[in-house]
């Protein structure tokens, strides 16, 4: 029997976990901001992908295809210009970044348990049950919070479907797409709250509005950095032309 699982895709090249090597233990340092912001851009990219499918009413033919398509699209965007001025330094190995599933919700039983995706030495991915506490131990607080916000949304929908006798709908692409859109939005809201709070502490500029129309916190825009870079570049060129 086919096992249906929601996936929380994260952008990772070497491991199925957020790039913890680049983050402080509490993800609460100014130096963590670019990594957290990249995480947000990835999550918003996926959210937008689901949103577009709904808007265009043009769904992938299977759930597998939908998940593969979303993950591949994210991998492609990561290699191109997803991060803009916050693009990370190229890795020593020079390999292209890859998105991969990190956590999921098993909706094949009414327990709707949380799972973690793991890779074996051969590179094969499988899922294993995991608890919220284990997620919190593995990820820093804000990353665990947004990951669990995403999965808890799936778990709530899954349990509601089982209780109402509507578990059948859990295998349809249309349900998946709508469900993922809402779950990504829940995770994004949690992540935005943390970034906005940390960014304020670290003097990143942001919007004059504290909230977006969807209720999530505003965060500093890369455009602000682009503007600064442009200004610095213009001054640098001018100084290079100076007669003395």
């Amino acid at each position, binding site marked *: 029997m086919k096992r249906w699982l929601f996936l929380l895709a994260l952008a990772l090249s070497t491991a199925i976990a957020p790039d913890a090597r680049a983050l402080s233990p509490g993800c609460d340092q100014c130096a963590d*901001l*670019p990594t957290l912001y990249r995480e947000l851009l990835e999550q918003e990219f996926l959210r937008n992908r689901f949103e577009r499918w709904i808007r265009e009413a043009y769904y992938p033919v299977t759930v597998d295809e939908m998940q593969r398509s979303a993950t591949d699209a994210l991998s492609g965007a990561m290699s191109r210009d997803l991060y803009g001025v916050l693009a990370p330094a190229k890795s020593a190995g020079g390999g292209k970044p890859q998105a991969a599933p990190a956590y999921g919700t098993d909706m094949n039983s009414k327990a709707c348990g949380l799972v973690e995706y793991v890779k074996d030495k051969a590179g094969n991915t499988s899922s294993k049950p995991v608890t919220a506490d284990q997620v919190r131990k593995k990820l820093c607080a804000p990353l665990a919070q947004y990951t669990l916000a995403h999965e808890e949304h799936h778990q709530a929908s899954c349990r509601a479907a089982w209780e109402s006798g509507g578990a059948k709908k859990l295998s349809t692409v249309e349900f998946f797409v709508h469900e993922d859109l809402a779950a990504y939005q829940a995770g994004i809201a949690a992540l935005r709250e943390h970034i906005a709070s940390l960014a304020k502490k670290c003097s990143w500029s942001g919007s004059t509005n504290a909230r977006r129309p969807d209720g999530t916190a505003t965060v500093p825009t890369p455009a602000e950095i682009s503007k600064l870079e442009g200004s610095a570049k213009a001054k640098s060129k001018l100084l290079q032309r100076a*007669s003395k």
Partner: protein
Amino acid sequence: MQEVLMAIAMIITGARSELPPAEIEARFEQACVDGRWEEDCPGLRTEIEVALYGELRELGTRRAPIDREILRTAVRSSFPPLVDLGLRRLEKIDGPEDREAVVIAVEHPSPAIRALAKRYLDQRSDPSSPGLARWWLAAGRSGWDGLVPDPRPELRQLGIASAEGMRFRYFASGEHRAVFTSKLAPEVLLQQIAKGRKVYTGADLAAAPKQQQAFTTSMEDVQKQMQAAMARGDFKALAEISERIGKQTEVFTKSTELLSMQPVKEFAGDPAAIRYVQIPASKSAAPITIAVARDEGLGETVMVISY
């Protein structure tokens, strides 16, 4: 903090511009680039460098990457905190363009900047490192204090009328010591700065202590000879001894003058090729000593003025 930064900037580049910030870059482009350099350019340049420093700091706070070309501009600039930031973000010399910028920073008036630039050159065993090491004078200041520029002495303090064809080298200069380098040959440079003055060599300076010793010894003999001649009533011998004393006193006077000149230890090679000149200082100050010689490490003629 901003006041401190501006004070440092003004030490190097002069007064701030009074133009509104929005007009500064346009005015600079109009008056200070492509060969044009008007009176208000130093102040405008200061304003732009300070503003660039603020922007690079902001980008740094946000962990945004900064183009190396911008960093090199920062390293080549005058405003000490901007040069310091540029050097630190550059992290190391990675290619000829970086090197060119760092070599300029080695000449900066602020000792902390010179030290950091030298470290980068030393890290890659740059060909200039041995020459710099020979002449390098540690400032003994670090942190923010190390960003405060060293003062440059006025020519009248140095006993010279002009520094034309000479380049002041902060990294080798210090308290009561100014070092210049020049493409001019040592003889030409000496003609320019101390025409008509008595020129000594490093060999003369080295010989001076021995001459003094020999004079002291010979005077003891002379004294004995004089006493003997007087006892004999030999006036001819006394006249000869007197003449000899006169000659030896001349040598003594010369060696005393030589002993008042400190040899410049940094000069390598034949001491006879190092020229020394002494110039009377104004008022009651000690005489100024100028040493000139070719230095292969720096690839130029070096002039050391002790004042």
